[in-house]
């Protein structure tokens, strides 16, 4: 009995005794041993070496040091929702991650990726690139930064000397902050080429082009939060549950409050599982399906006739086409969707207005992607949903800053802010940059090359492989710089390794460059350089979410290992190339701990503020953005507007367009083209960007249609000095403004005076007030056309709906359409299954970063193919079997079969985040030591086929063909 008393009263001795006992038995594990043993218990030796056991020690060492905890508010880097994260940092180590309930975008919520963000700050067993490396004699060798920079820049300058600046191809990144993306475009311009691009090309370039040409701006019209105001939400080509999980917080909230959710997809996605109505559609039949909806809408008179009269151009022509061509039987033939289902969807979105359409890469990645997205726009215009809260086209973008990088970043056909690359645009930007236009012109191979759109990232391999006489520049590409981009996200992987083999120089700048590195090492012995960049958690800057809200990321931790922020590296390169003074003329320079010069992100943003009038990146000063981050709790979740507090009246993140100077205090625009609000309250109307009339038809808005409170309650063109003078508003400008604005329009007036007077004094929209275009006459298909994919499973439909004719010099390259389609017309006999691809919730993009994160990698350990039980049984494939997926390129992927009704018979689905296997072989030996991700698998794009959009060169990944056999 004594023992009981002792045990219960003397806690301290108990613990000691138990430890002795435990030691004696050898069965009690302390945590470290526990971690170790449990890791080994997994059995897979490959995983064991990757486990983050020792990371804990590092974090703990810091904890024991007991330093002050600093909380940095940063933004998740894994998708475009823009979830805030509070990083708790102690002694420079990111020790904890806390949810930010205050954020109106995510209210503390995270998906698997966001909840695992802290792993980025863990150093031991990290698969990051830790120091510069080069491939020498087939082996990876460590280099010093000095040596690496010298070798890389010397080689580049030599190539430039021999073959001109266009021989180097710069692939930027949609994971760069706005400042880095912007600086990248500037940097490439000073190098002297338009040969630069980034992820947006292969995710939403068709959207940006299609949507901008319909009504003005190439972006999501509303916001994730605005889903809460929708009465019906049509997901067509988006699997938000996996690609944008936190957006579903708002969507499911809307559903709870009566919104109808409709999902149309070749797969019964997880989003479909949450839908009220699901329609299975044949991949690639989107235009036909949307026009099928329109057929019922027009037939039943459900269209918003007054809205169309006032605000839409060309709907009559579309209606004619739809009624004649897209009768229910034809829709069913092309899409496989019976009339009754199409009718039901049409009725649901018509009766529950405002309704919205959501899309992502399901619509864009087709050879007629620009037509698909425009058909979606037309659908929303017909229903009168655009420019309304709860309506609009909600285009879910992929990477965390793909919207911002598109807006101000390295596009081959445009300078920051969609200013284009005509001479006037160059001159304008030289003025902003404070450099001599003539000097920039001299940097280019010729003035002609300065105004010629560059090669796109989807086609750089052809820039290398194509015969020189066929390409529209002097030299083939000889060097490629992968600056934050994965290789496995571009199609035709088999040809990519050929291109890599042929290059003189391949430079990869990335925290996780290993997929590119391994692919290159597989076919090369030398000439590959890897430079470690840090992640966005290790630097600061602004990032634009898909809903156009800008958020400021605080630096959570110092750059790990020897990595450097991308903008620091750009300046370092510029130094070697001799244009650092020009590049950093307007920036404050900060020395980092190693003595490198870092252009301060705030000052880069101020330069963006000073130049990007077109899309309203001018009001978002670093101070205003930081104020928003500090006062997130003052913003309403449904409207995104601050109630009281220091940001009173602002919309969260000053969603662009946030016009005028920061001092003008424009609140940002939560919903584009919304006439129910005053322009100074974020209201607007469609943009006058395509002239005032077309073939005698008025393109400006009809009388009575204008933003609330505008002095001009009718259509008007965009504002310039002449219009101001004509209207008698010129004298509203200050003297200083007059001086600057003379001879300028609202986009080029660096004083912002024209915008101020137009908006603040007269409530008018500086970009004019016009109609949206249902007919985009400058596109190959003015009215969107269904065109069969290049690799179609339906030879009969190829005859009825053929693709475009081949193009000779399109983004500097010959591009094939009909030739490919005709040559492969009957290929479906051999390759009968439609192959489509998409996202998994645990991974993002090329996936190297997430597959290196043990917390995420554990959840998706095998590359797989989803196959319908019928197709599986026909081939004798059982769940979990390895199968060979072979496409017409003869590339073969060895993947695990996931037999599921999720895909319909005749369609297979593969996720696109994997890499590290090459046609059945693990590429582990080609990875730089210690930087192979935990999970490796076949990259679907090793096998994807040829096919590019006829406007933007978007690759066709969503519809191709394959066959499957048991491995």
């Amino acid at each position, binding site marked *: 009995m004594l023992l009981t008393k002792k045990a219960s009263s003397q806690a301290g001795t108990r613990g000691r005794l138990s430890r002795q006992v435990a030691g004696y038995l050898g069965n009690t594990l302390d945590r470290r041993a526990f971690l170790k*043993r449990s890791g080994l218990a997994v059995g897979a030796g490959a995983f064991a070496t990757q486990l983050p056991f020792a990371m804990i020690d590092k974090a703990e060492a810091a904890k024991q040091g007991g330093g002050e905890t600093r909380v940095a508010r940063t933004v998740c880097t894994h998708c475009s929702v823009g979830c805030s994260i509070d990083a708790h940092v102690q002694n420079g180590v990111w020790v904890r991650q806390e949810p930010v309930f205050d954020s109106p975008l995510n209210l503390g919520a995270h998906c698997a990726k966001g909840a695992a963000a802290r792993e980025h700050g863990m150093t031991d067993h990290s698969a990051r690139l830790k120091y510069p490396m080069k491939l020498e004699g087939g082996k990876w060798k460590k280099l010093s930064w000095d040596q690496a920079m010298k070798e890389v820049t010397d080689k580049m300058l030599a190539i430039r000397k021999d073959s001109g600046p266009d021989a180097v191809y710069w692939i930027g990144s949609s994971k760069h902050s706005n400042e880095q993306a912007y600086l990248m475009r500037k940097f490439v311009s000073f190098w002297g080429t338009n040969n630069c691009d980034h992820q947006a090309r292969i995710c939403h370039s068709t959207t940006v082009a299609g949507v901008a040409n319909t009504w003005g701006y190439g972006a999501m019209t509303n916001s994730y939060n605005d889903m809460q105001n929708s009465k019906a939400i049509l997901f067509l080509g988006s699997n938000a549950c996996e690609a944008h999980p936190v957006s579903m917080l708002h969507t499911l909230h809307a559903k709870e409050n009566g919104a109808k959710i409709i999902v149309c997809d070749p797969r019964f996605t997880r989003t479909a599982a949450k839908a009220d109505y699901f329609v299975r559609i044949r991949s690639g039949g989107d235009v036909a399906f949307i026009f099928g909806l329109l057929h019922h809408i027009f037939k039943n008179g459900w269209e918003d006739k007054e809205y169309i009269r006032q605000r839409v151009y060309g709907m009559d022509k579309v209606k004619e086409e739809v009624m004649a061509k897209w009768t229910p039987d034809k829709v069913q033939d092309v899409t496989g969707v019976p009339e009754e289902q199409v009718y039901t969807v049409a009725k649901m979105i018509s009766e529950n207005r405002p309704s919205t359409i959501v899309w992502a890469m399901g619509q864009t990645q087709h050879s007629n992607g620009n037509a698909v997205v425009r058909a979606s726009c037309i659908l929303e215009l017909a229903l009168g949903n655009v420019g309304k809260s709860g309506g609009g086209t909600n285009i879910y973008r992929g990477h965390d800053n793909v919207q911002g990088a598109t807006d101000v970043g390295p596009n081959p056909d445009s300078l920051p802010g969609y200013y284009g690359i005509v001479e006037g645009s160059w001159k304008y930007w030289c003025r902003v940059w404070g450099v001599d236009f003539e000097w920039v012109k001299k940097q280019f191979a010729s003035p002609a090359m300065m105004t010629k759109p560059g090669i796109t990232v989807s086609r750089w391999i052809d820039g290398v492989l194509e015969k020189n006489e066929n390409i529209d520049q002097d030299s083939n590409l000889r060097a490629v710089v992968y600056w934050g981009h994965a290789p496995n996200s571009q199609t035709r992987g088999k040809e990519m390794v050929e291109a890599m083999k042929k290059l003189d120089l391949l430079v990869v700048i990335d925290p996780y460059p290993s997929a590119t590195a391994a692919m290159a090492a597989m076919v090369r012995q030398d000439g590959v350089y890897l430079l470690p960049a840090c992640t966005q958690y290790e630097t600061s800057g602004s990032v634009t979410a898909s809903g156009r809200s800008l958020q400021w990321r605080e630096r959570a931790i110092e750059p790990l290992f020897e990595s450097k922020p991308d903008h620091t590296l750009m300046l370092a390169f510029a130094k070697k190339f001799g244009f650092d003074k020009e590049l950093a003329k307007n920036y404050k320079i900060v020395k980092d701990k190693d003595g490198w010069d870092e252009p301060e992100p705030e000052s880069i943003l101020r330069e963006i503020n000073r130049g990007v009038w077109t899309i309203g990146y001018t009001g978002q000063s670093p101070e205003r953005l930081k104020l928003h981050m500090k006062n997130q709790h003052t913003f309403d979740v449904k409207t995104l507007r601050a109630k009281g507090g220091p940001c009173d009246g602002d919309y969260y993140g000053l969603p662009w367009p946030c016009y005028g100077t920061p001092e003008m205090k424009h609140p940002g625009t939560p919903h584009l083209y919304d006439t129910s609000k005053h322009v100074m309250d974020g209201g607007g109307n469609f943009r006058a960007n395509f002239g005032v009339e077309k073939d005698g038809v008025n393109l400006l808005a009809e009388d009575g249609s204008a933003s609330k409170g505008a002095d001009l309650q009718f259509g008007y063109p965009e504002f310039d000095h002449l219009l101001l003078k004509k209207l008698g508003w010129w004298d509203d400008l200050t003297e200083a403004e007059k001086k600057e604005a003379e001879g300028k329009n609202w986009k080029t007036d660096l004083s912002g005076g024209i915008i101020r007077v137009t908006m603040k004094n007269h409530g008018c929209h500086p970009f004019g007030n016009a109609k949206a275009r249902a007919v985009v006459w400058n596109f190959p298909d003015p009215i969107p056309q269904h065109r069969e994919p290049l690799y179609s499973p339906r030879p009969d439909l190829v005859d009825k709906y053929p693709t475009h004719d081949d193009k000779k010099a399109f983004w500097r390259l010959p591009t094939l359409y009909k030739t490919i389609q005709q040559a492969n017309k009957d290929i479906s006999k051999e390759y009968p299954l439609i192959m489509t691809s998409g996202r998994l919730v645990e991974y993002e993009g090329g996936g190297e970063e997430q597959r290196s994160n043990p917390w995420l990698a554990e959840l998706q350990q095998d590359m797989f193919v989803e196959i319908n039980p019928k197709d599986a049984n026909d081939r004798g494939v059982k769940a979990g079997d390895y199968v060979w997926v072979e496409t017409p390129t003869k590339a073969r992927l060895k993947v695990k079969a996931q037999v599921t009704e999720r895909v319909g018979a005749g369609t297979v689905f593969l996720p696109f985040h994997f890499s590290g296997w090459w046609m059945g072989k693990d590429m582990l030996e080609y990875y730089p030591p210690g930087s192979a991700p935990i999970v490796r698998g076949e990259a679907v794009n090793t096998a994807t086929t040829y096919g590019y959009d006829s406007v933007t060169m978007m690759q066709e990944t969503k519809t191709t063909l394959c066959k499957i056999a048991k491995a």
Partner: protein
Amino acid sequence: MARMKFISDAERCIECNGCVTACKNEHEIPWGVNRRRVVTIDDGIPGERSISVACMHCSDAPCIAVCPVDTIYKTTEGIVLHDKDLCIGCGYCFYACPFGAPQFPQDGAFGLRGKMDKCTFCAGGPEADGSEAEFKKYGRNRISEGKLPACAEMCSTKALLGGDGDVIADIYRNRVVFRGKGSEVWGWGTAYGKPEKQQPQQQPAAQGAKS
């Protein structure tokens, strides 16, 4: 008096596995051990629904009843915790738990499973709160910081609610009123087909069809 509970809303859960990685992150759980998991019923076909499951901190916890060394206990907040120093690794809690919550770090030949590990509702264990020893054995103690489990706080669609049973039942009940369905609370009652003992207020008022 707070009685800590989890509620997983199958109408909202989208199987994003955020709760799984939030748990890994907060407690630095090694590969192969998962205190929480998301299970999807009817995967890929109409009716698909997902549920996040971990230790449900049952009122009448079977694991406590069967533990041969009385290592599992219940705090005054209704959180089921255990003492790893006492645990003999017999696996009885694993047999008894309907949710598969207890985890063992070893493969178990000759019954050598190691010390049981499970969801602590982010409340640590019998060591000084927030201490190094507590973190190593049980993970972080958020409860003592006035915070709730990381999984629930970070749930992408707020499908997983964690906290004072009364408060989260209110949140849940409110939702059910708005959407008019999905009142079936996932938990002990679901496991045994009978309402949970001692927790009548756990069930929201708006009862739908409950099987």
